[in-house]
């Protein structure tokens, strides 16, 4: 049986304002879930909270992954357990090459599993990285560039997917990976994710729009509103949102939130 990420009645404040008001969601390895919702509904807050950003204050509930409440863990410990977040706004680390960074990340995990590990050898790492870049149709020169430093929007998102491909997590959260991309960039990024999907990867695709779901086909679609998941269904739900927009969600649930 694969790993399961279970979010139970999660409440989160940001700067003392309640943003998440009881989120429940179960994601299994091998499943693809889409989380949709209007702006400000709490989608990104959920992403950051799951990864452990210090600015997000959990006021209630728990998140169980591999039998552990990960809300107690540091972000690096969550990563070691097999959780991954593709950022909506990846952060630049000037002076640190993509390759150097990824190798350090791989070695950090190997070291944790075996304190005597000497780290991945340079030839082995180069082979791995080359393979992953080819898979994502990326120029090899990418490896030598400073991480997210001066990257275009599309390059940043592809760098995120390259990290996802290289670090091979069990559950990946993609936070608005489609935002700010033109249709070609979107297709390349989405096809990259699609290529990685499989029985060993569970994905939570957070998005405002349906279009990325043409490439990454979710089995489950959830709608978030006012800090709660208010609707869950199959792929049809995404199409319904695309046609009807979010107004009906607002009308149906705005009153309930009062």
């Amino acid at each position, binding site marked *: 049986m694969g790993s399961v990420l279970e979010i139970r009645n999660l409440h989160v404040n940001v700067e003392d304002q309640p943003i998440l008001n009881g989120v429940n969601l179960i994601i299994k390895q091998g499943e693809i879930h889409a989380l949709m919702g209007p702006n400000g509904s709490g989608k990104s807050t959920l992403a950051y909270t799951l990864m452990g950003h210090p600015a997000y204050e959990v006021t209630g509930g728990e998140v169980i992954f591999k039998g552990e409440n990960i809300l107690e863990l540091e972000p690096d410990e969550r990563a070691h357990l097999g959780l991954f977040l593709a950022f909506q706004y990846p*952060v630049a680390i000037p002076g640190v090459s993509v390759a150097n960074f990824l190798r350090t990340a791989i070695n950090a995990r190997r070291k944790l599993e075996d304190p005597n590990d000497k780290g991945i050898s340079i030839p082995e790492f180069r082979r791995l990285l080359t393979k992953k870049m080819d898979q994502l149709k990326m120029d090899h020169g990418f490896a030598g560039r400073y991480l997210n430093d001066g990257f275009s929007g599309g390059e940043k998102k592809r760098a995120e997917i390259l990290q996802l491909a290289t670090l091979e997590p069990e559950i990946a959260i993609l936070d608005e990976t489609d935002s700010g991309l033109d249709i070609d960039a979107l297709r390349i990024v989405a096809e990259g994710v699609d290529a990685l999907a499989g029985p060993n990867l569970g994905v939570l695709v957070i998005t405002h729009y349906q279009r990325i779901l043409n490439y990454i086909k979710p089995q489950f679609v959830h709608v978030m509103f006012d800090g709660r998941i208010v609707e869950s269904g199959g792929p049809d739900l995404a199409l319904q949102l695309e046609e009807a927009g979010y107004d009906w969600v607002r009308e149906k649930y705005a009153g309930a939130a009062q």
Partner: protein
Amino acid sequence: MVAENEQLYGLKSQYAEKYGFSDPENYVFKARKGLDEEIVREISWMKGEPEWMLDLRLRSLEIFRSKPMPTWGADLSQINFDDIYYYLRATDRQESNWDDVPEDIKRTFDRLGIPEAEQKFLAGVGAQYESEVVYHKVHEDLERQGVIFLDMDSGLREHEDIVREYFGTIIPPTDNKFAALNTAVWSGGSFVYVPAGKHIEMPLQAYFRINARNMGQFERTLIIVEEGASVHYVEGCTAPIYSEESLHSAVVEIIIKEGGNCRYTTIQNWANNVYNLVTKRAVAYRDAQMYWVDGNLGSKVTMKYPSVYLMEPGAHGEVLSIAFAGKGQHQDAGAKMVHNAPHTTSQVISKSISMDGGRASYRGLLKVYEGAHDSRSHVVCDALLLDERSRSDTYPYIEINEERVSVGHEASVSKVNEDQLFYLMSRGLSEEEANVMVVTGFIEPFVKELPMEYAIELNRLIALQMEGSIG
């Protein structure tokens, strides 16, 4: 291309283990503590020096005594000049074969990796232990080409005419109190002479080691690069950790003639009980180039401002420096660029990192004399603060007496921000590793100027400094 700093993580030793060890003192000569005319005469006599050098030493002692302690820069009030050994000779011979170096001293340099580095990638090595150079060797083919690489004492003995022509002309004893002190009690250091047109491809390296308590090390280096010649000189330094303070006060003078090129790289890693007060200056003539690559990691206090005097058209000077100030450290470092002729150019890139209550200051002087028209200078100072308790200051002094010049100055102070740390930690790096990574990236423009072996060493030293001090 791919990650050189594989040793960066997983390093679990401390300075104490790697560099902080000390040997028992079985010295052939140890002058008594304190400084007076008798000590100076004794040093000169031990070395069998010519009369003019003794005179220069004695004159310098007077200048040292007459100059007040500097009150700007770092706090030097705790230095007790009477509580310092000014001259220690650990062995009475200098060897050119490591097997002949006394066993305990050889073991020290083995532990520091010097013989290994020499075999791998150096054109020549000098190893100074306390006051004297105990090992010196230069590739024979360089010798055949007329390149001279000696310790300064041997340089004076064997090439007195050259030494007398240049010694103290770039940094006279009147320059500052510590230059005067060095000139009075200097011992060891390097003498390098590169004949016209000779290019030394591999670096020459000097390694300076303090072993005894309350030691004062005062090496003196003179480098002369003749027309169209080039050299890369590298120095490293470490010391044991004692509660008592040691003093290191060196003087480095460099002359680069027309079309010559000199690169001087320092990886300063003294223990945190060493006062490091150093005067370094180069003069560059027509179309000559001087590069100071200056890394300051260790010491309790460092005051050091490598300078280039641009004397003739086409001369170019650069300082690329990093300073790392941790707990109890004050790095007051910077650069001086003096444009003395038209069409001269200079660049300063200074990066500092402060953490754990440390303090890093950039202190720089840019001087353009009247008549040095069409000169250009660019100064960039970037400071990185790792926590709220640490401090960074910038003191740029700019004196320009010429109108047709182009001068730029940029300064920035940044902090490792929460989002950078979160991003890196979300990929599995610990908070410490994430901090190290941001710092590694910050100093990358410096590190990439180093030969690869030193780049690896430097990244390793930074990781060592940061280890266990976060969280």
